[in-house]
C-alpha cells in the first residue's frame, strides 16, 4: 500500500489553511489588516481526465484572498487586492511554462494590485499590479479559479503584471492596460509586452456590448508569440438565462486567425446552481493553408451558502486539424472558501 508522506509544499499548504486559527479567525484578522478589510482562505482540488488516453492529472490550490479599501477623511483612496495562491500539480501532462514539470508546486498570483480611485469618483482610476487583461467577456465575469472559462486560451494569457487606466462613466465602462506580457512571473526575458483594452456599455445592464483589442508579444516557454487581435463581445440576460458571444480577428505569430465563442447558461433562482454550454471556433491561415477547429463544452457548478462549491465540465472537439488539436477533457473540481 502506498503511504502518503507530506512534502514541504504540503506543510506550507497546511500552514496557510490554519491561518484562520492562528489569527483567531475573523476578528484578529480584521485587526491585523485594519478597517475596511476582508480576507479569506480559498482551497480547491481538481481532476482533469483525458477521456481518450485515460490520463488523470490533479491540481491542488490553496490561496489567500485579501481585499482592503483605503480611505482618508471624506473619500476612498484606493482598493488593494492580494491573492497569492500555492498551486501543486500532480501527474499533469501539459503545464504552464513557469512550472518545472507536471509534478511541481509553485506560488502563483491571481489578482494582486492596487487600484487608485481618488482621482474622479470611479470615472478615472489607475491600477498597478497583477490583474486580468481587459479583453472581451473575461472583463465582466469572474472566472478565476473556476472550471468555466471563456477565450483567454486563444491569447495565451489571462492575467499580467502592469498598469491600467480604468473607470465607469454614465454610459461607458473602460479599461486600457499596458502589461509585461509575462503572465505569472514578472520577467523581462525576451522583452514581452501587451497593449490591451476594452470599451463597453455598462456591465450591470441586461444587454451589454464591448469592443476589445490585444496587441503584443506574449511570453511562452520558448520565447514570445506575437498577437494582434480585435474583438467584439455581447451579453444578454433574460430571467434565468444568460447568452454570451465573442468574436475576434487578428494574427498569431504572423498567421491570420479568426475566433468565435458562444455560451448559453441557465442559473437557478437561488443562484446556487449554474449550468452552461459553450461552443468555440478557431481558424488559422498558415502559409497558404487554412486550418480550423471547433469544440463544445458542457458544465455545471453548484455552491452552497457556506462557501462550498462543486463543479464539473466536459470539453470535446467538434472537429480538429493537425495544428489545432483539442484533447477531450473531463474536469471535476471541489472548492471551499473559508
Amino acid at each position, binding site marked *: 500500500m*502506498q*503511504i*502518503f508522506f507530506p512534502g514541504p509544499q*504540503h506543510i506550507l499548504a*497546511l500552514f496557510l*489553511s490554519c491561518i*484562520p486559527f492562528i489569527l483567531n*479567525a*475573523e476578528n484578529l484578522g480584521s485587526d491585523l489588516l485594519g*478597517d475596511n*478589510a*476582508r480576507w*479569506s*482562505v*480559498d*482551497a480547491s*482540488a481538481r481532476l482533469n481526465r483525458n477521456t481518450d488516453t485515460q490520463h*488523470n492529472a*490533479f491540481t*491542488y490550490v490553496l490561496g489567500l*484572498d*485579501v*481585499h482592503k479599501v483605503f*480611505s482618508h*477623511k*471624506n*473619500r*476612498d483612496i484606493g*482598493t488593494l*487586492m492580494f*491573492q497569492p495562491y500555492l498551486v501543486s500539480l*500532480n*501527474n499533469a501532462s501539459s503545464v504552464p511554462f513557469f512550472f518545472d514539470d507536471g509534478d511541481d508546486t509553485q506560488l502563483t498570483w*491571481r*489578482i494582486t494590485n492596487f487600484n487608485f480611485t481618488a482621482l474622479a*469618483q*470611479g*470615472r478615472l482610476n489607475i491600477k498597478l499590479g497583477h490583474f486580468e487583461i481587459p479583453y472581451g467577456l473575461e472583463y465582466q465575469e*469572474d472566472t*478565476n*479559479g473556476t472550471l468555466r472559462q471563456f477565450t483567454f486560451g486563444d491569447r495565451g494569457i489571462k492575467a499580467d503584471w502592469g498598469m491600467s487606466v480604468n*473607470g*465607469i*462613466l*454614465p454610459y461607458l465602462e473602460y479599461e486600457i492596460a499596458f502589461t509585461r506580457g509575462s503572465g505569472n512571473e514578472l520577467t523581462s526575458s525576451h522583452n514581452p509586452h501587451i497593449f490591451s483594452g476594452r470599451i463597453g456599455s455598462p456591465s450591470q445592464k*441586461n444587454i451589454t456590448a464591448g469592443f476589445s483589442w490585444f496587441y503584443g508579444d506574449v511570453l511562452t516557454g520558448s520565447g514570445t508569440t506575437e498577437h494582434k487581435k480585435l474583438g467584439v463581445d455581447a451579453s444578454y440576460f*433574460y*430571467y*434565468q438565462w444568460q447568452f454570451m458571444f465573442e468574436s475576434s480577428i487578428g494574427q498569431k505569430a504572423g498567421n491570420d486567425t479568426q475566433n468565435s465563442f458562444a455560451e448559453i447558461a441557465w442559473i*437557478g*433562482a437561488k*443562484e446556487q446552481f449554474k449550468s452552461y454550454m459553450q461552443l468555440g471556433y478557431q481558424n488559422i491561415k498558415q502559409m497558404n493553408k487554412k486550418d480550423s477547429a471547433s469544440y463544445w463544452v458542457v458544465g455545471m457548478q453548484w455552491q452552497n*451558502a*457556506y*462557501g*462550498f462549491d462543486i463543479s464539473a465540465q466536459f470539453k470535446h472537439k467538434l472537429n480538429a486539424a493537425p495544428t489545432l488539436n483539442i484533447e477531450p477533457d473531463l474536469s471535476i473540481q*471541489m472548492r*471551499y*472558501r*473559508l
Partner: protein
Amino acid sequence: MANIQVKKPADLAKASLAKLAAFFALTFFMLTITFPSQAAFCSLRDPISAIQALYSQEYQFRTVVTDVTEADREQMKQQLPFTIHQSEVAKHTLYVLYKDQKAEGFLQARSEWAKWGLVEIAWAINLDRTLKGFYFQRCRSPQCNDTVTRSISHVIQGKSFSQLKSLLSDDGETLSAYGQSVFPIAPRLALLTLRSALKTLAITDISWRKDLQNLAIAH
C-alpha cells in the same frame, strides 16, 4: 550514473488519491469548525453607476465595511416581521456620500431573491433616514425598466421607515390595501423593492451605528 526510479502509473494514481483524500479530509475539517466566505473578492465592485445616477458629480464617497452579525439579524426582527437571510451574516459595505466636506447621505446595495434570481438594488439614504432614491444594479427581468422604476420611485422617495412600513401588510408578505392602491404597476416588484428598502434602513442603523458615530455623522 544516477539511479532513476520510474514510478508505476498505479503508484502515481495511489499517491494522487492519497493527496486528494488528505485534501478533502482537511477541507471537511475546516468546513465543520470555521466560518464561511462568499465569492472571490475580485468580483466586488463599487456601485459607481448607482452613485452617478443617484448623486451628482460634486459628491465624493467613502467606504465603511462592517460585520453584519447574527445578533443584528435578530435585532431586525424587533423592527420588522422579516429579517435578512442567514447567508447575509457577513461583511457588508456602506458608502458615505460627502459634498463640500460634509456628509450628505449614504448608499448601500442589497440583494433580494426573486423567482428569477437575485435582484440587486442600490439605495440612496438621506441623513435623516428617509429614502433619496434607488437604482436597479442588477435585475434580470425585463420588468425592471425605466417606467416601473420611476413609478415605484415616485411613491417611496422621501419616505421614512414607518411610512414605508405602512405600505406593507402586518406579516410583511404582501402589500397593504394602501400599498396596493399606490403601486398599480408591477406590484410584485414593488413589494420586493419595499422589503429591500425596509431591510436597508433597519440594518444601516443596527450594524453601522458605531461606525457612523466614529465618523461623527449624527442621525
